[in-house]
């Protein structure tokens, strides 16, 4: 199948770096933000920031998906 564009993959990697690989950097109680422990605040923020990254990926991928559909003669 058609592979996703490099830009979309990089945007998809951002939440993985933030939520997963960098755990040792943010898994701490202080400094508290909005009176939440830092690790809580960090992960909650990424619930909101991940849609932003993926919205960017959507903007990159959707035109390509449309190309594929018209190549195949699809009407969807």
């Amino acid at each position, binding site marked *: *199948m058609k*592979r*996703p564009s490099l830009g*979309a*993959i990089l945007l*998809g990697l951002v*939440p*993985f770096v933030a*939520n*997963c*690989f960098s*755990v*040792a950097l943010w*898994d*701490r*109680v*202080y400094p*508290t933000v*909005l*009176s*939440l*422990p830092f*690790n*809580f605040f960090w*992960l*909650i923020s*990424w*619930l*909101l920031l*991940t*849609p932003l*990254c*993926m*919205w960017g*990926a*959507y903007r990159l*991928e*959707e035109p390509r*998906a449309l190309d594929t559909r018209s190549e195949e003669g699809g009407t*969807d």
Partner: protein
Amino acid sequence: MNPSLVALAIISGIVAAGSVVGFFARFHHKMDLEQWTVGGRGFGLVLVWLLMAGEIFTTFTFLGASGWAYSKGGPVLYILGYSPLIYVVSFFILPLIWEVGRKYHLQTQADFFQVRYGSTYLGAFVALVGVVSLVPYVQIQVTGLGLIVEIASFGAIHRTPAIIVGFALVAGFVFMSGVRGVAWVSVIKDLLLLLTAVFIGFAVPHVYFGGIGRMFATFAQTNPGHLTMPGATKNLGHAWYVTTVLLISFGFYMWPQYFAASFTARSGRILRRNAVIMPLYAITMPLMFCVGFSALLIMPGLSNGDLSLLTLVRKTFPAWFLGIVGGAGALTAMVPAAIQLLTGATLYSKNLFRPILAPGMTDQQVAKLAKIMVLVLTSGAVILAIYSSLSLVSLWLMGSAGVAQLFPGVVLGLFSRRATTSGVFAGIAAGISIVVFLMLTGRDPYFGLNAGFIALCINFVVTGVVSALTPVRVAGFEETLPTLPPSQSGSAVSLT
């Protein structure tokens, strides 16, 4: 009036109302298999969102997440960690799965493997992995129902009879409602659960501490180690976190019921948009953690962390409110359990039993078999629920490790021309063997790493090596592969 009677009466009322809605919803639609399993592939953004969100918010998130916050502390953050990431992965693979699903009339996950790798046996093997992994997931729901009945009766109904009541509710619900009914009840339970979860999440810390911030401040003074990893555990540190988050992120949409949910969408674009907005739904999750943390400060020493949310609600609020929470919780267990059971029974009958053991079976016989399978699977889950003492989250991790072994076959199936039938077969077999061995011998985590993740890595290597050594039979979905007949076996899995 006796508080346990009030609570139990309200729970029964909510469960009965839900079942009645399910029962009547199914009468409006005459369904063939295509309609029944994948909703005619005509669901739009909102309905797909509701369906996926509804299936994902289960007893595991409601009782299990607060339970782990109570008993384990920091490691529970892995749930918040993987929540947005599963949608990132879904963004890249679900639209493609949808596309081949439409092209080849796929209805189940095993169909995908069968068509892509040209092997009925591989399809059957994948179905077996799916069905077996679903058992602990159903067990979570049955156990959750048992806990609700036990707490709401103030201990008057003990664990084992409570679990059997849970079993009766789930099995009855599946037979009464069918999938269309389940979808309607799902909307009701989502609203009820969201409202109660948000209310409890804010109200409990407010009543005891004057707010979530103060609750955390108290916690940070008295027991700061509980809030970070490894929390109250010795072996669930950062390496475990990273490997577990990766395992679930890759494995989540390998659950056969979630995989097949992508076939219900009207277009691939709907699935992409859905993936963009879904992380917002997880915003209720931290509130469940707050309840678990509050419970540990208020009433430490519970033998079972999974009881913490319900016990705290019982202690804090009047009996009628416990009834509403219990009723919401009961529907939250019944709806996903019904979908899991229907998926498991369909996989078993359509992709495993008939093609391998009894190709001559009529559709009516297959339908009967699927009904029996619902009972078999539920009974298996009940027996396990009665005899096992694993926490809800541990059960979920076990099933997830199993289904995640299907990930290499799906991803390579979509993007690689080199993956062979034997390679994928060998990879899944190796992965599953390692998961079973490490978990049954108590080696999870193994050297601080998630056992399922270790198995997934070995699975990828075995798939790659064996694929390199064996000839390619089918080089990808772009080839014109034999399509499954549009409405194979009409009433095969119509349980109602």
